[in-house]
């Protein structure tokens, strides 16, 4: 087709006009894009920058090192042990099973462990390390490290885990740690975020639980960069946490061990206490268990054997166990009677072998009767009738008041689990608990520590310490937290005239040292450590007309043997209480234990034979030789935390 130049110019002009229009429209849209760009990346920049940071930055917690627990001399009771473990990362390993088989050739790995690891590695993201084996020996650990080049994806790691080097000795006092449970979290108002760390361990019972606040420390923080699937790319920064505080207990680990070994297989409890400060020097419940088993995850078999044992190793008999105090309670009745003025220190009571009240006969342990006795003689020979009669005159409320003054029926505040308050009964208590009137017969039973009266070994030790020092000593278990020393709780003098306290002490002296004292065979002959004490034998069932000879009864029906003592008589330092469950007589079973522990506390070593009556020395020597005491490592100065 042919066109004129004029036509061509005309059409070109038209296209030019439209081109200009289109170009302008494009320019306008470019301006819109520029404005939108500016709005996004300048006006909204802060918001988007925050979102980008949230995308990429994650905060991870660094678990704090748990505080250690030491005895009063700085010896380690609970520490943190390097835990060697090996982890595998799927994406680095490639064929996980193949690598695991190769690993199994180097260190022992069971088929179960391999199967479990394989299962878990398939469930998790490929970059998440999975624990293959825990608590490896140093040898195995170094073997893995050495063979690392042939084990792709396998990394040996070091973590910290709790260890109790004195295993059974402190199981009840210190307790143990374990993984955080749903129940633990439910009980907390605002749980520390550190508890969410997998495998984080917290105190479950004992000091570990009740001083968790001090021991745990504060978690550190690690800011890490992650990519879109959560893989850690690098660490951006970290804030170190604070390790937990170390605790120093009042307990002497060597005395504790001595006591534990001395009790042997008996089902028993011993509490030794400094009468001035209230420091608990030894607090032993026997038999015990190894808390390390619980930290590592106790096997079903071990757990059931602990549960089925009729000596109840898991129970802490020192603070949780309550027993009728038996004759060890007689000091309380005596002091109440003296304070009420119903007897004098010198006046006598006639014991015909029984006490008749409202047509009912209450027998004295000595069938034939003691004849006329002073208070001193009544305590020394542990005459029951004397206390029946005075108690009826005093009334239960005054006896209970005296008991509480001496620390019975009171829940003492210690960082230990399930501390029992025991029972110091009075009229109001019986009305409240049973909805019944208090009967006079109840008073008679209570006067010799039977009936409703229940005390824990700890309370008996406190009672003895208060009697000995004349002050209301408060038991104390933690001596220091971190670098701070805990204050010794104030112990005001007891509101009891010294004259009466002395009468009770004199009676306890006679028990041990008098010619007719019930525990005279357990006396200390060393004049610098003369001992005062009181035996007790608590019935656990009513004999009626049945067999009275304990040796012929089944174990669980035998009497509890009790003993409380302190020494030196003239300047008391240490008080000890002993309860041997179903042990039989207090003087025969409990008193020798009390003496040994007392001497161990006073002498700072194995008790010298010279302190024992000459006739017993040979036997005592063999007894000490047979005791397998633990060799407790001295504290290392400037020890590292790990």
């Amino acid at each position, binding site marked *: 087709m042919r066109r004129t130049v004029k036509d061509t110019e005309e059409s070109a002009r038209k296209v030019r006009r439209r081109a200009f229009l289109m170009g302008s429209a494009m320019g306008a849209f*470019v301006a819109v894009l520029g404005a*939108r*760009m500016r709005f996004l990346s300048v006006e909204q*920049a802060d918001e988007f920058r925050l979102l*980008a940071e949230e995308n990429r930055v994650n905060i991870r917690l660094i678990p704090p090192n748990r505080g250690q627990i030491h005895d009063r001399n700085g010896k380690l009771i609970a520490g943190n042990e390097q835990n060697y473990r090996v982890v595998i990362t799927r994406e680095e390993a490639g064929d996980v099973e193949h690598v695991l088989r190769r690993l199994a050739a180097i260190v022992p790995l069971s088929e179960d462990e391999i199967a479990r690891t394989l299962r878990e590695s398939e469930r998790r993201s490929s970059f998440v390390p999975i624990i293959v084996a825990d608590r490896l020996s140093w040898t195995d650990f170094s073997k893995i490290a050495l063979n690392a080049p042939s084990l792709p994806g396998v990394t040996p790691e070091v973590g910290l885990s709790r260890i109790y080097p004195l295993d059974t000795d402190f199981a009840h006092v210190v307790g143990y740690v374990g993984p955080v449970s749903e129940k633990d979290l439910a009980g907390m108002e605002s749980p520390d975020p550190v508890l969410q760390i997998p495998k984080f361990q917290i105190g479950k019972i004992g000091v570990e639980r009740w001083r968790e606040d001090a021991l745990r420390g504060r978690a550190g923080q690690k800011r890490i960069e992650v990519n*879109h699937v959560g893989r850690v790319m690098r660490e951006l920064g970290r804030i170190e946490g604070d390790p937990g505080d170390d605790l120093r207990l009042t307990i002497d680990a060597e005395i504790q061990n001595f006591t534990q070994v001395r009790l042997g297989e008996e089902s028993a409890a011993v509490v030794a206490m400094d009468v001035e400060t209230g420091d608990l020097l030894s607090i032993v419940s026997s038999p015990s268990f190894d808390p390390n088993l619980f930290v590592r995850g106790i096997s079903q078999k071990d757990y059931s054997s602990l549960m089925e044992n009729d000596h109840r190793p898991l129970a802490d008999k020192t603070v949780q166990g309550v027993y009728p105090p038996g004759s060890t309670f007689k000091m309380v009745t005596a002091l109440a009677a003296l304070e009420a003025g119903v007897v004098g220190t010198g006046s006598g009571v006639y014991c015909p072998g029984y006490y008749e009240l409202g047509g009912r006969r209450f027998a004295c342990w000595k069938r034939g009767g003691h004849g006329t006795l002073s208070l001193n003689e009544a305590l020394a020979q542990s005459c029951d009738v004397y206390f029946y009669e005075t108690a009826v005159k005093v009334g239960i409320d005054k006896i209970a008041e005296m008991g509480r003054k001496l620390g019975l029926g009171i829940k003492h505040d210690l960082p230990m689990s399930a501390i029992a308050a025991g029972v110091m009964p009075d009229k109001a208590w019986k009305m409240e608990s049973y909805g019944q009137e208090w009967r006079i017969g109840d008073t008679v039973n209570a006067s010799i520590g039977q009936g409703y009266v229940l005390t824990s070994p700890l309370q008996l030790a406190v009672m003895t310490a208060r009697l000995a020092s004349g002050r209301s000593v408060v038991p104390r278990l933690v001596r220091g937290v971190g670098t701070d020393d805990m204050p010794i709780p104030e112990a005001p003098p007891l509101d009891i005239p010294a004259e009466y306290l002395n009468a009770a002490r004199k009676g306890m002296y006679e028990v041990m040292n008098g010619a007719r004292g019930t525990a005279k065979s357990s006396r200390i002959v060393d004049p610098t450590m003369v001992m005062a004490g009181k035996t007790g034998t608590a019935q656990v069932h009513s004999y009626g007309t049945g067999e009275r000879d304990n040796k012929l009864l089944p174990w669980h029906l035998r009497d509890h043997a009790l003993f409380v003592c302190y020494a030196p008589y003239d300047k008391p330092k240490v008080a000890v209480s002993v309860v041997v469950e179903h042990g039989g007589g207090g003087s025969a079973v409990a008193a020798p234990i009390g003496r040994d522990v007392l001497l161990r506390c006073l002498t700072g070593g194995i008790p010298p034979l010279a302190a024992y009556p000459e006739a017993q020395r040979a036997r005592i020597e063999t007894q000490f030789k047979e005791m397998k005491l633990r060799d407790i490592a001295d504290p290392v100065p400037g020890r590292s935390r790990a």
Partner: protein
Amino acid sequence: MSFLEYRIKTAPTGLRKVLFVNWPLVLLITAVASVGFLMLYSVAGGEMSRWAEPQMKRFGVGLGLMFIVAFTPIWFWRNMSVLAYLVAFALLLVVEFFGRVGMGAQRWIELGPIILQPSEMMKFTLVMMLAAYYDWLDPKKVSHPFWVLVPVLLIVAPTVLVLLQPNLGTSIMLLAVGAAVMFCAGVSWWYFGAVAGVVGGAIWGVFHFRGTPWQFLHDYQYRRIDTFIDPSADPLGAGYNIIQAQIALGSGGWGGKGFMQGTQSRLNFLPEKHTDFIFTTLAEEFGYIGAFSLLMLYAAIIAFCVISAMQNRDRYSQLLILGVAANLFFYIAVNLSMVMGMAPVVGVPLPLLSYGGSAMLVLLVGFGLVQSAHVHRAR
């Protein structure tokens, strides 16, 4: 005399052609492509061989092709237009029935070492065809209904084939570019107004009657449209890409986080970071200043094309240049609107920046046509 005959006499010949190439345009294209190499290097985490290097090689080849096309006289290309269109159309038909399916829906043919995407070819052969059509048509008849229907069919036929692949992005591009060429050719405003009215009315109708008994679509279809229009309603599914893209864009601020410092792309939060979403990495690392500079470079390329078209007096050349410019513009506009959350996500790459061979080569050949028109214009 024929305008063409007149022009042949004044058009440069032989090596003199080099002097008449639109060099600023070549420079701008190279600058934009270089920004692309830089970003591809960055999103690969500092690796050349992954994306940057192949892209550079393709650019080199493309540049060579561009000059070959540029030095070939524009009347040769005009004479080839109908043939090129028919070949591309035939290839579209071939892939429709025998082509290889991959990458979701893109279809291509392998001819020995050459992999052909006929839909890419169609972008410029359609422009050539339409330009040749209007060059042939008497300018007085452009708004005659019959002569409007012909180009509409020329546009719709390949568009339908591409839509069937299915490749929504490219088919929208074909429609838009075709409309742009028709607009520039001088087709009456009434047609554009009528089409806009019908489309707008249809959209209004679809949404207006939603929820009434005589609604046009099924409920699930409406819901699909909803997520298509507003992806933020589904932040972890359909909306994830666009939200992460906006975070990357926005967090750059004025000056950006620095080269290779973009956390969104480096940590893989960004989807398609080397193709459709490459602009977000640029905005994250070089901030508003960097992003705006790139926008200005693009604007300059389009401006140079439009000016070149306005300087030209040959109808075919004018429409061809404007068609290529419109193509470039629509790609940029749709891609940027998409990554900035102004338009739904349709898979449209950013020309010269996004990683991809076919698109790059075809675009450079398109610029070759622009240059050819520029070199051989009447003076």
